[in-house]
């Protein structure tokens, strides 16, 4: 028995759901970056983008919506993955003469995210 009423997720402020998910996503991305690092190739951004795209794809394909999608999709997956770091790292590789790595990074994130969506779709189909 609880003295407080159980929170009803449907009455939570969307900004709180998105914000809380965003804070968790950013912390998780920070942890991945601390462990994997980004030299000589920005693997940590590639990893968060592929994993986060897989998670968002799975959440969407299994039919998550409303508050759950705001928290998991818009908040956590949206913040866990990043375009700005990817763009900066790609430009930085290119301008420091690492053009093959820059191209591999640009293409790798795209192909990785596409494959992640395909895998999420297959898993969602198998589950449901």
């Amino acid at each position, binding site marked *: 028995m609880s003295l407080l009423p159980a929170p009803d997720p449907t009455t939570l402020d*969307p*900004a709180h759901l*998105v*914000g*809380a*998910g*965003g*804070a*968790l*996503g*950013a*912390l998780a*991305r*920070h942890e991945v*970056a601390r462990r994997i690092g980004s030299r000589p190739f920005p693997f940590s951004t590639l990893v968060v*983008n592929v994993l*986060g*795209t897989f*998670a*968002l*794809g799975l959440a*969407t394909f299994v039919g998550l919506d409303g508050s759950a999608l*705001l928290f998991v*999709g*818009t*908040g956590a*997956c*949206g*913040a*866990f*993955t*990043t*375009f*700005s*770091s*990817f*763009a*900066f790292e*790609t*430009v930085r590789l290119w301008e420091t003469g690492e053009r093959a790595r820059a191209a591999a990074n*640009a293409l790798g*994130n*795209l192909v990785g*995210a*596409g494959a*992640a*969506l395909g895998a999420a779709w297959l898993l969602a189909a198998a589950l449901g």
Partner: protein
Amino acid sequence: MTESHPLRRIETYALVAIGGFAGANLRYLAALLAPGLAGTLAANVLGSLALGFVLYEAIYAGVLAPETRSVVSTGFLSSFTTYSTFALQSAQSPPGLLVANVVGTYAFGFAGVLTGRALARRAVDRWGGPGDADADESGGEPAP
């Protein structure tokens, strides 16, 4: 290294979480104002421009404090921009729009970083690096 001090680690986590809360919410606002591909594109391009400015400022001069960089770049801007939503929205678009969105987001995103770099270069050329501000106070041209 001071970075390994437990309080510094906790400080960084707190700043990253606060930045993530705010960045995700601003992206959500962009999605409400411009649903679909447009809101995501706007967030990714603006975020890339701002991150380009912050990180090139660090390379050129480093006036901004490392704590500011943590909250602004790893926290706020990296959460404001997103790859997952960009990828999913592209995949859910008709083939022509898919290609246009991928090419457009990449092109404008890279252009955003380069614009941020140019702005950082101008800011550093105009106002100088760390230490130059002290020189200004002792009789140099006042900063505009």
